């Protein structure tokens, strides 16, 4: 019984690995750090920009081990989106085109915001721009956590 269970687990693991191998995901955020380990406080080995394509090598919890330009590391899955299949003959032959990526992300965007601003004098976008400048560097955050004796608990999400 134990052997059978082990065999089933091995088959499932192999299937999961096969699915992950060669899988491609796209970056859905402006910029994402690729890290040495699957946690936010691990060193950064590379950075990927919006719409950049990453090859997925493995998945664990909410993290994916990816390769970008020969560099391997971990990204949190909330920074990526999977894709399903090509939509044109060109794509079927050679992968996705930049046009199609643009198509996939078209929607509420900067052009819509510019139009919206014309009819929304009660909205203060200048202060939102200021708010976006409120960021915390990796070093500052690490120092803050260390000084406050904060260490993460639970599994690495």
């Amino acid at each position, binding site marked *: 019984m134990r052997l059978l269970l082990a065999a089933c687990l091995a088959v499932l693991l192999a299937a999961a690995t096969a699915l992950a191998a060669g899988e491609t995901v796209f970056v859905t955020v402006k910029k994402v750090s690729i890290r040495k380990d699957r946690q936010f406080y691990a060193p950064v080995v590379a950075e990927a920009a919006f719409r950049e394509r990453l090859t997925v090598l493995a998945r664990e919890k909410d993290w994916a081990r990816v390769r970008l330009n020969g560099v391997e590391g971990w990204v949190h899955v909330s920074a990526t989106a999977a894709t399903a*299949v090509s939509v044109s003959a060109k794509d079927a032959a050679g992968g996705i085109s930049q046009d199609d990526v643009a198509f996939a992300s078209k929607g509420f965007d900067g052009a819509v915001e510019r139009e919206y601003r014309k009819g929304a004098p009660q909205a203060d976008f200048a202060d939102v721009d200021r708010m976006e400048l409120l*960021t915390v560097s990796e070093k500052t955050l690490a120092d803050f956590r260390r000084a406050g004796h904060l*260490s993460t608990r639970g599994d690495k999400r």
Partner: protein
Amino acid sequence: MSGGQGCRGHLAAALMLAVLAGCSAAEFKDIGHKAARTGETIADQAAVQGSALAADTAAHGKAVAKTTTKALRKGFADLTPQEEYYIGRAVAARILGIYRPAEDPEATRYLNAVGLALAQASSGPETFDGWHFMLLDSDEVNAFAAPGGFIFVTRGLYQSCRTEEQLAAVVAHEVGHVTLRHGLAAIKTSRLTEAFAIIGTEAVKEFTGADLARITAAFAGTIDDIIDQMVSLGYSQRQEYAADAESGRIAWRAGYNPAGLAEFLGTLQAKAVKADKKGFFSTHPPAADRLAKVETLLAAEKLVGETDPVRTARFSKIR
């Protein structure tokens, strides 16, 4: 082809093609933010994709793409992180049209450090432009969470906290509203149906002025829906309890004492007696009910921690 064996054969072929094709596609499936699709939807998607692969001209492929977009984008769960960001910016702009930012750089830096430590321990740490936390110059005891990670805390709420754990609990509650997408859930489905229909139809060319006007109208309605819910009506009690539960989990994972929320709610409960039902008091369930539920959750999930005096000391110094 319709029904029977032929249809099953087509679906099987489509599924196989989808697996073989792996993951090159035009349609984003947001893993981190979106709920899992139903089997039916996945099967529909595979069938459409199979048709697309069978096409031998780009034009046909694009036509199928339109259908795919229409079929897949139905509600707020289908918004991309980029769209969520632009919605969040506009919601934040409306909030900042009502409240002014507090000019307190030290407290703002501190709030952002606490907030980011918590956001990184949440279920949705990566947002399109990162997380940003702003202190508002108001005595009202209130906080707001705009989609995409724009969090606001009034000075009144900030000063009602007695420890860093309590502040962390309040901020984690707002982070929970974002990761659980409560703001986006306020959008009337018809707004998105309208926008997605235009976006889907015009996917392969530039929008005309009329299209942009219609999308902008849907966008404006979207922002109104969220502002109405967030500022006037308040989230449902179920959403508030869910954000409280998420607050406990996030605070615990970040290394804080998850009892911070219970402690803060105790303070809130005392204040609510004298409060004029504005802000945090009018848009949240009774503090006593929340307190009871939070304590039950912490016990059930065995979330325990300690309040390190070093954190309380730095909070008192900055406050």
